[in-house]
Every structure is written in structure tokens, then in C-alpha cells.
């Protein structure tokens, strides 16, 4: 009997009724069926309690300090990218120049240290970070997601 009544309406109208998305005439039909048919009433009540449970679930959002700073505009993104690019190019040029000076001309130890010390140490530090990043890339689950 319940089956025959249920077949009188499209069952998905129950969801429409639950969400208040039906026109008045259809809502009235569904309301009558819910009142008359225990099986449909049970289904409706179950769906309603699931909806209520979902709607009342509260989610924790991360505090402000957990969000990494991100570029807000295309201009700031471009500036940031350009800044890093220029820095890398500058370091490369200075290092190559220093290396060339070191290999092609003789100088005293202090001069060599002054020329090579700063860029050399920066390159070494930068390389260590780069090596770690490259190694992480192979296993990083988030590599596809822009941070």
C-alpha cells in the first residue's frame, strides 16, 4: 500500500518539500502523503534529521596567523616574482664573475675571500633550500596546489 502511494509522487519531491523548494500545490500533495503513509513519513523524518544534523555542524576555521600571506593582486604577484628572479640572476652573475676572477687572476687570500665570501655563502645556503625543495617535490601531495 505504501509502495502504491509512494508511486503517486516522484519520491525526490520529498527532498524538494524538505527544502521548501516546491510550489504550493505539490507541497500540499507531499504533505498529505507524509501524514498518511508511515513509510514515507519515516523516510521524511530520517532525511529531516540528517539535514538538521548537517546544518548544525560547526567547523573550526584556522586562526589568522595560520594563513600564510598571499599576494593580493596581480601587481604584487608580479613584483614578488620579478624580485625573486632578479635576485637569482644577480647571485648567478656575481658568482660566475667571482669564479672567473678567482680562476683567471691571481690575488691574495683576503681579496679572494672578500670577492667570494658573501655570494658563495649565499649560494650555498640558497642551494641547500633548493635541494630540499626539489627533493620534497617528488613526494609533495600539495605540489599541484598554488599556495
Amino acid at each position, binding site marked *: 500500500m505504501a509502495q502504491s502511494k509512494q508511486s503517486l509522487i516522484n*519520491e*525526490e*519531491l*520529498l*527532498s*524538494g518539500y524538505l*527544502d521548501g*523548494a516546491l510550489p504550493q500545490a505539490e507541497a500540499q500533495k507531499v504533505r498529505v502523503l507524509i501524514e498518511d503513509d508511515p513509510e514515507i513519513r519515516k*523516510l521524511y523524518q*530520517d*532525511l529531516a*534529521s*540528517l*539535514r538538521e*544534523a*548537517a*546544518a*548544525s*555542524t*560547526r*567547523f*573550526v*576555521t*584556522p586562526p*589568522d*596567523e*595560520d*594563513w*600564510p*600571506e*598571499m*599576494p*593580493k*593582486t*596581480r*601587481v604584487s604577484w608580479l613584483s614578488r616574482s620579478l624580485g625573486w628572479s632578479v635576485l637569482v640572476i644577480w647571485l648567478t652573475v656575481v658568482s660566475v664573475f667571482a669564479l672567473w676572477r678567482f680562476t683567471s687572476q691571481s690575488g691574495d687570500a683576503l681579496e679572494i675571500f672578500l670577492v667570494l665570501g658573501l655570494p658563495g655563502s649565499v649560494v650555498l645556503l640558497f642551494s641547500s633550500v633548493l635541494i630540499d625543495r626539489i627533493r620534497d617535490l617528488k613526494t609533495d*601531495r*600539495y*605540489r*599541484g*596546489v*598554488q*599556495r
Partner: protein
Amino acid sequence: MILSEPALPPAVAAPAEGDLVIRACRGDECARDELARRHLRGAFIFALQLVGNRDDAMDIAQDAMLRFFTTLHRFDPARPVRPWLLRIVRNRVYDLHRRQKIRRHDSLDRISEDGRKFEVADLEVDLERDAERAQLRSHLWRSLGELTARQREILVLRDYQDLTYAEIARALDIPMGTVMSRLHAARKHLRRILQKDLDAIG
């Protein structure tokens, strides 16, 4: 910081969203900050509801927000921002899964194995009735992971995000008529999963 509260005098009404979009489109950083303040957390929660873990959700929410700003010139300021942004979030989630070549609930399984938990805060657990409801919410949240991606996204948009059928249709780019049928199928599937789980628990 992008999420900081704007220093508005109490008597000044918050600017309308459409105005913010127009100003942001012209490069007004205050308008962008305000849009981010209003929507970044919502984007995070939706991403969390789709991917099931905090770190992925944060990455996706930020990425979606950035993409939202870079595509702002294509956005109609007369329309609400939320469905548009949620659509970007949803697409980023799909991109992520496509790249990882895993299905969404596979990732949830892995997260469970890793010991990470879903970020659900229940604030009302004092009374016995509330404890039961909290348990139902917890079961429901875990069961979401067993739905198909399509079922999960439509259920989340309606029951967790409280979008209207028209907004869901816009966010998912599907006809209005499909929303109700897909949503009902998702709810019935979820009900079956929950019943099975509860039967298993006894």
C-alpha cells in the same frame, strides 16, 4: 594580514558586495581585503567539507581566493560572490584529485590512516540529547566520505552551506531540475550508509 577586521566605525554600514567587487576590480586593495575577509573562511569550510582535511582545505581556499581575484573582471557584480567562489573551490578540488589521480574518498581513507581528524567542533555537548546529536553529526561527517564526489558536493552545498537550488545549479553548472533528483539520491545513499554503520555498531 588578509583576514584582519576592518576598522569601520560602528555606525557605518558594511559596503554592498557588488560595490566591493567593482572596487576590487579597479584594484582597490581595501575592497579585496574585505571580500577575502568575508569569504575566505567560507571557502575553507567548503573545501574542508569536500576534501576532509585542514591542510588541503587551506591551500585550496587560498588558491581559490587568488583565482577569484584574478578572474574578477569576468564576474558580474550584480550576482552574489558565494556561488561563484564555491564553484572555483570545487574546481580546484577536482584539479587536485585529478593531479593526484585519486578519488576523493581514497584521500579520506588515507587521512584516517594518518591519524588526522576532521576539523569538527561541536559546541553543544552538555546535555544527553545534544550528545546524541553530536554523535549523529560525527557519523554523518564520516559517512560523507563514502558518497560519490558528485553526491557529496551537492549535499554539502545544500545541507551544510545552505545554498538555494538556483545557487547550487549555478555553482555546479547543472540544470535546476537535476538539483533535486541528485540531491535526493545523495540523501538516500547517505541514509543507507548511516543505517549500515549504526547496525554494525549495534
